[in-house]
């Protein structure tokens, strides 16, 4: 059972604000989706391990210094920047 409190808590963890007037409809819609997801608990329990598809293994390169981006380029997309840094927020 998904409650209003659950949705408020999950929203907080997700760093999303849910307006008070949307809380009830969102709780209901979450409940419907969770009911649908609950289908899987009708499946016979299995301990089939799944950690990887197609036997892929992680690819690591040699630990060598390679060319990367300069900070000017990296900062190009920042909504706000100051002194060659990302600006998180202004001081109050």
């Amino acid at each position, binding site marked *: 059972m998904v409650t209003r409190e659950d949705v408020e808590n*999950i929203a907080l963890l997700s760093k999303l604000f849910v307006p008070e007037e949307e809380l009830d409809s969102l709780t209901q819609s979450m409940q419907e989706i969770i009911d649908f997801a609950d289908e899987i608990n009708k*499946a016979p329990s299995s301990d*089939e391990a799944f950690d990887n*598809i197609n036997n892929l293994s992680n690819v690591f390169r040699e630990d060598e210094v390679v060319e990367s981006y300069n900070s000017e380029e990296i900062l*190009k997309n920042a909504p706000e920047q100051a002194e060659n840094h990302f600006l998180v927020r202004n001081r109050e």
Partner: protein
Amino acid sequence: MGTIAKIHEMLVSKQCSCAELTKSYLDEIEKSNGELNAYVNVTGDEALKTAEKVDKKIASGEEIGMLEGVPMTLKDNLSTKGVETTCCSKILTGYKPIYNATVWDILQSQNSVMLGKTNMDEFAMGSSCETSYFGGATNPFNTKHVSGGSSGGVASAVGANIAAYGLGSDTGGSIRQPASFCGIVGLKPTYGSVSRYGLIAYASSLDQIGPITKSVEDASIVFDAISKYDDKDSTSKGFSGDTYSSLNNDIKGMKIGIAREYLDGVRDDVKEAVLNAAEVYKSLGAEIVYFDLPALKFALPVYYIIACAEASSNLGRYDGIRYGYKTEHYNGTHDMICRTRSEGFGEEVKRRILLGTYVLSAGYYDAYYKKAQNLRGTIVKAFNEAFTHCDVILAPTVPMTAFEMGRAVSDPIETYLTDICTVPVNIAGLPGVSVPCGFNAKGMPIGMQLIGKSFGEAEILNAAYKYQQAAGENFKDTKWGVKL
């Protein structure tokens, strides 16, 4: 002959210059994009610059590659250096990547002419293209209907001949489903065969980039070009060999499997078209084998649990600090991040982040996420077992044809059900290609899907190519765009 080969021949034989060809594509985009809404960003100047480069090469007698000078498009979640890449989300408006996706690096180095970036469901979350911040792309067969999604813009553009081909991404059907809805070909490659570097992540263990094209031959050409090993993607494997040289192989004796579960709940007109295709295969000497795949019953909830869990983690990066949209008024860091995300994400994206956070949270992790991962293992095993009975699996791509605009928005669960035939392939990391196989009474295209073993692209494209040769009448052109 496919569209790509035709364009190549036109350029090499100097029937037209690449600049002329590119201009005619741009003119057609100008004329029809208002109604199709396929492109969200047209990059005409860049396209013409590349075209001139190709023309110079041709004029100087240099040989050009098959994809060189061919006008194409990229889904807007593929990073293009210096060209806005938004995932059709407000939260990424204005974002211009400082690097290229590897697939675009490959194609750009071959002088591919990119006409622009195409529409998609926001962050690829949707099955109708309508969750796009820019509104949905429409279907070239009937613009009152959806293009499908999430790569709806690419499918609409290719179906309407305002791009020769395009690249999309497929997490739960996002290449195959819109290709099916728009009457064209869409290939979702094996997980690991095409580098995901520069594809803005939705669900990393399911995402895969692939071609959307007019013909099977074109899909093979593009796949062979982009399926290269890449050390920038930790799950990259590349594809050894090619698919093109075996396209026309005889399929006599090929075992084509039909899992009964794939036909459950599928609309009659779709089922009939797929079963007709099975008859075509029989006439080509293939053997049809029926079997059961009961694990498929759980594929859809497994998919939504895993995809949303991964999305909730992947989309944690949008915080208004490093790129994209940032809220104007806020009170402290937490408030700034929450406001940015609440204002920047659309409804469906928020819903999936919340669901993903829920299934990963303490107390629910075992019942949902862990259980879904276990079932993922069961589904992988079931497919492996199925491929001991057959070489490829034939199934519908979507249980229905393209529905009318506006319908998907009202009921999330009903919309999720459209993905029922496509998600198993992503869960198991397998390749699948959607191919047109008929039309319903209203003239909307029906697609069928050929599913292969891991890295079995050559086999499914071979089977698809033979079908296109035998049943070419199902590959119908639309009234739109450039006529070659």
